[in-house]
């Protein structure tokens, strides 16, 4: 395996001397609705099949067809799969954006463009390749109406030839992509081959970038976080799913419907689940709560606007103590504009969602495998603590393709929490719904339908005593609120613990969570290698914060909290938990352009704040 040659690069003419292997980002700029997704997936898979770590990120508009879209594949021999800011190889297919796309490249990048776009006069410090796509596609695709669809596969062949991606792997990826449609597979393969052949005969390789075989992807899978979450929820024993379509969460439930149909319908053709598309998020959460109250493992998936609508019900579930799981696939804020861009902007609002004194358990996955695993944890915690549990994913994790080890089969059994059955009630005679018998703040509940005259209790919001009787007494209210607080304190020792990674005698700590992780781990290496800055790193995986979080902050002079929102929402949440003297140690590195966090942004800002 070759490694990067350190030869200097100058102008376009001399670029050929440099050789950069398995370390690049390839960006395909197309028009939304042009069917480029298949081509991009094929390209991604072909590189992955050659053993090179990859990630794929789709930057798409809130639009069905016509607006520009960019797909970025990052191949990285060191396994960095976060976003890379700089584009090394541009496939310019969109006339609308081609000029801007080219102008924003760093010197030395390669550009592959559709011949009529004539981009090569724009700059002289890039490598340009032009391909007459229409001519090539006409030759392999006699049916004119299909040409638009297969045109994109031509660039896959061209890129393969220019980067030295094995055409055998391209074929394999095409066969997988069009698994049951042999005709479509053959047509696309012909298009890719036409691109490859054209490039071989007509293009002189001058760019620096190459893909070479390595062995870092054997046995791995490629999946998006929403699909991983869907699988996780299925294996978590979820029985009721209610939802209202909203980007970027819709695909979670849509994929779940497919999985549930495949694996959760018995030989008698009957489903062990109910999935209902509700009229809005208010109804979706209401159904989750009704089902959780009546004993189902219920869930919904939504995004920020849905979270806002669920606010009132979330408070009711907190006070009435009803389990349920809510996936928040975070995205940029309200209404139109950037709903298809990623964000970690719902942290504060979700932690305290609703009116009155409310606080909720949040689980924060950073990877597809955590989306899978935390599904089971979320349901177990929800039932153990008889409360809502929010799983805070985001668009980058939920909708983009991630490479991962295969998921482990859940080893923790499904735990239904403190539920009294008929037999228990026969022994006990009766029960007090909200009495803290075990000192953990969690009472015992019964499910509607329990066949015992003492099983029933009355569920309502703020005003009730231990026996669930209606009460407006100050002491009943206060006692109940203190017990709810005790319950939340108990949860502190049961939620997922943070992941801590130490540097060498580091005085600086970094705290991050969710998808910010991928930028941070790469940035830590940059900080160390380029600036000599050693850092320790704590990745939060849940709220409430566990003991380790406090200890980590106490152990460091300065703590950089890296997150993808404007106001440092997690930093604010930490402040509420910390001893006053520790608060001043916190610094915010906030990233808010709607794009997944990249390492370079963190490195630049942190090194600057460290005075380097």
């Amino acid at each position: 395996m070759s490694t990067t040659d350190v030869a200097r690069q100058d102008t376009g003419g001399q670029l050929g001397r440099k050789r950069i292997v398995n370390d690049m980002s390839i960006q395909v700029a197309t028009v939304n609705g042009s069917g480029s997704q298949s081509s991009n997936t094929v390209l991604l898979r072909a590189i992955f099949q050659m053993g090179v770590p990859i990630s794929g990120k789709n930057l798409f508009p809130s639009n069905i067809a016509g607006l520009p879209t960019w797909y970025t594949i990052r191949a990285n021999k060191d396994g960095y799969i976060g976003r890379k800011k700089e584009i090394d190889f541009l496939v310019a297919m969109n006339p609308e954006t081609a000029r801007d796309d080219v102008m924003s490249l760093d010197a030395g990048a390669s550009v592959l463009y559709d011949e009529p776009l004539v981009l090569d006069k724009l700059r002289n410090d890039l490598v340009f390749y032009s391909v007459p796509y229409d001519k090539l596609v006409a030759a392999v695709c006699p049916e004119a109406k299909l040409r638009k669809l297969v045109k994109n596969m031509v660039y896959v062949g061209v890129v393969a030839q220019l980067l030295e991606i094995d055409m055998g792997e391209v074929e394999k990826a095409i066969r997988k992509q069009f698994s049951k449609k042999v005709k479509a597979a053959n047509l696309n393969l012909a298009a890719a081959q036409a691109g490859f052949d054209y490039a071989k005969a007509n293009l002189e390789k001058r760019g620096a970038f190459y893909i070479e075989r390595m062995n870092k992807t054997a046995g791995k899978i490629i999946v998006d976080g929403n699909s991983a979450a869907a699988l996780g929820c299925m294996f978590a024993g979820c029985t009721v799913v209610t939802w209202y379509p909203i980007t970027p969460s819709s695909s979670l439930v849509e994929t779940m419907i497919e999985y549930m149909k495949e694996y959760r319908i018995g030989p008698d053709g009957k489903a062990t689940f109910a999935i209902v598309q509700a009229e809005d998020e208010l109804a979706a959460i209401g159904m989750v709560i009704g089902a959780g109250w009546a004993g189902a493992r219920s869930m919904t998936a939504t995004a920020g606007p849905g979270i806002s609508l669920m606010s009132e019900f979330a408070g009711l579930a907190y006070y009435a103590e009803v389990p349920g799981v809510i996936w928040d696939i975070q995205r940029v804020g309200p209404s139109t504009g950037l709903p298809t861009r990623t964000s970690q902007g719902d942290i504060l609002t979700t932690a305290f969602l609703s009116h009155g004194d409310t606080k909720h358990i949040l689980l924060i996955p950073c990877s597809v495998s955590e989306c899978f695993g935390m599904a089971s944890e979320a349901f177990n915690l929800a039932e153990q603590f008889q409360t809502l549990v929010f799983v805070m994913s985001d668009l980058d994790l939920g909708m983009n393709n991630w490479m991962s080890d295969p998921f482990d089969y859940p080893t923790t059994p499904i735990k239904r929490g403190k539920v009294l059955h008929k037999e228990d009630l026969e022994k006990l005679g009766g029960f007090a719904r909200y009495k803290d018998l075990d000192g953990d703040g969690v009472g015992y509940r019964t499910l509607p339908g329990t066949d015992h005259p003492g099983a029933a209790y009355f569920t309502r919001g703020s005003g009730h005593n231990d026996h669930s009787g209606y009460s407006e007494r100050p002491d009943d209210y206060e006692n109940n609120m203190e017990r709810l607080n005790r319950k939340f304190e108990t949860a502190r020792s049961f939620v997922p613990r943070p992941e801590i990674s130490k540097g060498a005698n580091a005085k600086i700590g970094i705290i991050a969570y969710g998808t910010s992780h991928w930028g941070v781990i790469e940035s830590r290496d940059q900080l160390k290698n380029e600036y000599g800055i050693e850092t320790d790193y704590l990745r939060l995986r849940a709220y409430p914060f566990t003991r380790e979080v406090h200890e980590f902050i106490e152990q460091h002079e300065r703590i950089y909290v890296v997150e993808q929102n404007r106001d440092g929402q997690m930093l604010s949440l930490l402040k509420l938990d910390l001893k006053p003297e520790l608060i001043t140690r916190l610094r915010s590195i906030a990233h808010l352009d709607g794009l997944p966090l990249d390492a370079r942004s963190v490195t630049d800002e942190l090194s600057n704040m460290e005075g380097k």
Partner: protein
Amino acid sequence: MATTPAAEPKTNRIGLTVVEYKGGKTTLCAGCGHNAISERIIEAMYDMGVKPERVVKLSGIGCSSKSPAYFMNRSHSFNSVHGRMPSVATGAMLANRDLIALGVSGDGDTASIGIGQFIHLMRRNLPVIYIIEDNGVYGLTKGQFSATADLGSKLKTGVINDLPPIDTCAMAIELGATFVGRSFSGDKRQLSAMLKAAIAHHGTVMLDVVSPCVTFNDHEGSTKSYKYVKDHEESLQEISFVPHFEEIDIDYDAGATVSVTMHDGSHLRLRKLEEDYDPTNRIRAMTRLTEAHDKGEVLTGLFYVNTKAPTFLEMLNMVNQPLATLPESLTRPGREALEAAMDELR
């Protein structure tokens, strides 16, 4: 000393006394129509021999929504948030299809803040008995008009309602509810028969029960007062109900009576007071409701019934056992399933 054994208390067909269907002491105003409805619910459940443990009582917010605390203490109950009871009821029924869901709402809770959820509940034909305790005003917030207040009705303060009312029955019929009627809290016989039939029905039952608010809407000029309703009530039918566990009375006039056979074998007998009214004809029902508004009638009776339409739970094709109690062996697929899913992603 001889003692006289106490008389055995009267029990229903499952051996329960009526006391076992009672609830807590009402905190609503004396004379409130809602209390009468609670009484009718207790009677109907007792007479039908419904096991209280199978019933879930669900409500939103408002005077009406407090009333589930005043009947059937042996049933689980959920007093949820304003206008959102339908979704909670839906969730509960998804979790446990064996439950009998009784939803109690009010005109504000249904026709204003809850209109969205109400509409979608109706179109799903979920098995639920949805009762609107309809008095045309918001009671708990002291007497503002609701959206079922009639055009021209007057508040105590003299304010006149100048917007047309929402007819919840017409909406329910249009949207797909399969048992729709209107009654009056003061009409004991009719309401009892309709509630029993509601219990026997499979699908969404929507009963709008005019239930005067003695404190805020029982005065001269109100169209939801006891006096106004008594003076303007037009009944479509005389309703009687023969439960499946009682012998069928063969002695009825087939020409003047519509007989509806319910899912459980019970019979609903509707003695026609209007010759040509057919409660299985949706279009006729809608027309008649419109006429009632034009004539200023308080039309009561069973407007529409359809015993054939599939319920939402049937459409979902779920296992017979409640989802809530399925064991892990049925809800967590085996290792081979995960292996297969992983293979597809390689």
